[in-house]
């Protein structure tokens, strides 16, 4: 029980932020985060062995997000809608930059978006392969291409604005 509480407190924000960035919708992200921890709690109660809780939580949460996206029939391309963006208020240049990146992220497909989020969280290539379903030997290539694409999208967004 204490163990669960520690894992819950250590990972809640991480799982929530993963869901928000994958879905672009805070309410669904909150529901999915809660569902993920309920599944985790049920697994502990049912004495299922979870070797790496953090990886387990990321896997379950991202699968739930993909299911949710499929349900909304927007798996491959999420419509860019201002209400989907997480950073609604531009307080300074820093948050403006974040907003652009958030917008550029939305242009990626769900798998690549997950890859970039995991990369930003410092996951190893091995874990990224496990969580995204991309072959371990292809992670470096996919990652460098995706980051380039993200940079290109960022430039396009800036061009649109200025």
């Amino acid at each position, binding site marked *: 029980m204490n163990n669960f509480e520690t894992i*819950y407190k250590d990972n809640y924000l991480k799982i929530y932020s993963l869901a928000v960035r994958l879905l672009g919708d805070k309410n669904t992200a909150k529901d999915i985060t809660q569902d993920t921890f309920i599944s985790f709690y049920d697994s502990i109660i049912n004495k299922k062995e979870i070797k790496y809780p953090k990886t387990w939580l990321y896997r379950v949460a991202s699968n739930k997000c993909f299911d949710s996206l499929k349900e909304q029939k927007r798996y491959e391309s999420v419509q860019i809608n201002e209400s989907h963006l997480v950073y609604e208020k531009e307080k300074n240049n820093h948050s403006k930059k974040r907003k652009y990146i958030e917008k550029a992220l939305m242009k990626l497909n769900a798998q690549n978006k997950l890859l970039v989020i995991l990369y*930003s969280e410092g996951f190893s290539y091995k874990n990224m392969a496990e969580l995204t379903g991309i072959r371990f030997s292809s992670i470096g*290539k996919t990652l460098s291409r995706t980051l380039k694409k993200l940079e290109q999208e960022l430039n396009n967004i800036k061009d649109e604005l200025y």
Partner: protein
Amino acid sequence: MNCISEENIQAYIDNELSINEKSKINEHITQCEYCTNNVHKQRMLASMLKENIAFDEPIAIPDITQIIDGSPRWSKEQYIKSIFYVAAAASIVLALLIGLNKKQELTPELTHDYANHFEFDANKSITDQDFEITIIDSEGNITNY
């Protein structure tokens, strides 16, 4: 050594190469300005993205009892689905009840006995004739028409 591929530069800056591969790249970039620039560019891009993708919005972590006491176990979607299922079940039950009521209406009243008193008056039309019907149902109730 040929110039380094983007894939290997990525793995290099992410510390995902073996010691041998890493030392080969280290050796190469000391002699190749093109690759040194590429390593620098990719490193800058990675660190810029890492810094700005990091989620720093302050949110309150919900109380753990919401998870473990079993009270709000359903998500919003599940609630909506359950409401839909309950509504569908209620409509079916309602339809069945209405159907049964209609059937009951159609069931003929059981009559135990009946008698009629009828005197035909030839001077009156058929609609003006007087007659009386007495019905005694199975419970012994008498109704006159």
